[in-house]
């Protein structure tokens, strides 16, 4: 519910600074997803928000009020821990109802709520079991259930679905998406899963070594990454990067690499000219390459297919392009023979260019 602001938040463990000035504004009832490689500080950020870690400098505001000195229970939040953090001596039902029991809610209400959440999570047959008697995925669902029985203003999720099988994960994702529509809560969600991040988020925040790289809607980040890191991090399979040299000819800009020369769209070309770029990195997503033998010379890559990974209706081809490796996503029925050199059309509006020194987008 509250509007949450992180202002120049830093975290130090001893002399090591692991978060360097996090600036983040989360609107009322917004679903924020934190993504980033392992160890980049996602859990730390979440735990500071929860009040489990002290703030080294900077401030956290909820609805404009500074809260960094408040105890977790005064911040009105529920949390799913990365390591579940279940109470080992309580059975599933008591784990899930602990907060409600502390709040002295009527027993009837507690029972009803626990049953409702347990049913949603497929845990109704396990209510009497202790955490040690559950599988990893079941434990994770209990952790999730413990948060969902709460009626807090803010929900913090630290990789809450990481241990579930694909089908269950899909179901839970859908449940979360429904819940997100139905209840007006603030949710902050950490995940490694691209699909979760893309489907659930109102706002994705990409972090790297304790810093926010970029934040915005999933679509914005996917289409307009500010740097090579964000571009490579979002999207699966990840974006291809090729070293190119820009050539200016007949008022047009061409990106030349080993064995290819691609024409750059006017807008992007203008920006490149303005920055007088010469050496840079060209980025193209695997899904923006189409098998097309008749594509023009300046809008295609000739790739030698070395591996084909079948993943159902789509196949991922791993190809050679000079010394670089390029992955391509094609429909599985595309007739492909390994070892062949094939021509793939490049959608010109899907080309990204990055400064080869600073990695920022051009």
């Amino acid at each position, binding site marked *: 519910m509250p509007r949450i602001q992180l202002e120049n938040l830093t975290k130090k463990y001893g002399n090591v600074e692991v978060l360097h000035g996090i600036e983040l504004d989360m609107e009322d009832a917004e679903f924020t997803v934190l993504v980033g490689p392992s160890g980049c500080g996602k859990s730390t950020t979440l735990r500071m928000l929860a009040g489990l870690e002290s703030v080294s400098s900077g401030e956290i505001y909820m609805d404009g009020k500074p809260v960094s000195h408040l105890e977790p229970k005064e911040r009105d*939040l529920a949390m799913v821990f990365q390591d579940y953090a279940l109470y080992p001596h309580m059975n599933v039902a008591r784990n899930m109802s602990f907060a409600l029991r502390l709040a002295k809610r009527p027993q009837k209400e507690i029972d009803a709520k626990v049953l409702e959440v347990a049913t949603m999570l497929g845990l109704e047959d396990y209510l009497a079991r202790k955490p040690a008697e559950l599988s990893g995925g079941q434990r994770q669902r209990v952790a999730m259930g413990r948060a969902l029985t709460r009626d807090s203003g803010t929900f913090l999720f630290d990789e809450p679905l990481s241990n579930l099988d694909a089908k269950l994960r899909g179901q839970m994702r859908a449940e979360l998406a429904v819940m997100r529509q139905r209840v007006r809560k603030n949710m902050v969600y950490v995940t490694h899963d691209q699909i979760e991040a893309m489907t659930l988020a109102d706002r994705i925040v990409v972090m790297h070594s304790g810093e926010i790289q970029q934040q915005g809607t999933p679509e914005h980040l996917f289409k307009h990454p500010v740097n090579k890191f964000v571009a490579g991090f979002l999207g699966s399979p990840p974006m291809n990067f090729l070293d190119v040299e820009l050539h200016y000819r007949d008022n047009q800009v061409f990106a030349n690499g080993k064995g290819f020369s691609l024409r750059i769209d006017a807008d992007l070309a203008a920006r490149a000219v303005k920055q007088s770029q010469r050496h840079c990195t060209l980025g193209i997503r695997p899904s923006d390459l189409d098998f097309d033998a008749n594509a023009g010379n300046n809008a295609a890559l000739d790739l030698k297919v070395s591996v084909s990974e079948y993943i159902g209706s789509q196949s991922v081809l791993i190809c050679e392009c000079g010394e670089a490796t390029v992955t391509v996503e094609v429909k599985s029925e595309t007739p492909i023979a390994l070892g062949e050199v094939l021509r793939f059309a490049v959608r010109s509006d899907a080309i990204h260019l990055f400064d080869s020194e600073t990695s920022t987008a051009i």
Partner: protein
Amino acid sequence: MAPAAIIMLIALFYPLVYMVYGSFRDWDPSQRLSETDFVGLANYVKLLSDEAFIESLTVTLTFAFVVVFFEMLIGVGLALLLDRNLRGMSLLRTLFILPMMIAPVVVGLMWRFMYHQTDGIFNRWLTDLGLDRVDWLGQHALTSVIIADIWQWTPFIFILSLAALQSLPRSALEAARIDGATGWQQIIHIKLPLMAPVLIVTMLLRLIDAFKVLEVILVMTEGGPGLSTEILALRIARTAQEFRELGEAAAMSNYLLLLLMVLTLAMFGFTRWQEARAQKLKMLQREEEG
């Protein structure tokens, strides 16, 4: 291996068998055991109506349960208070366990001086404050020896509780904080239940030890005044040496032994029960995965 085992068995059980055998006989220290008369359960029956023995048994039980109760209360309480990472905490913890390292006889002597009617520190304080002196080792002898024992053995409980506390899953406590538990509620609902297995074993160990206490009381009061602090161990020694009733003394020791055995069995039973439970959990889990 076999000879070693036999020697061990003899070394362990000979005194025990000797004592049990002796307890069925009318036995004066001047006699050899073979010269004594068999009296069946007479020694045991006689003890049951022996007021001095009953008194001594009551003193022992009172002493043991009272000291263990307070030691648990203070030891666990201190552990809960000092379970935090503040500067100087490790020094404080080391200081707390000093009493345990002092030889019991020395502890007894120390407290005897402190309880001294005129020169003891307690009574001097009391007179300085203008209050009446307390007859520590006379009228209040049992309370006084209980206090001394609590002073000596609380650190034992403290150390074990602290170790138990520090091995609790941190994340469960964090979850409790998020769930809105106050400090007290964390103790009642999370910390104590999770510490319970260690606490129960610690308590039984202390109880067994408290039944056998001897030195401190011997030095402080020698069991007096009257029978007020005559714990079983002392009573047994006196029965054997002063009253020259070896058979009776042996029967008394057997009563004590029986009591300790029940407690020990309770402890083993408890750990066994726990292991069985853990085993069952594992089996259940394997079934699930299989």
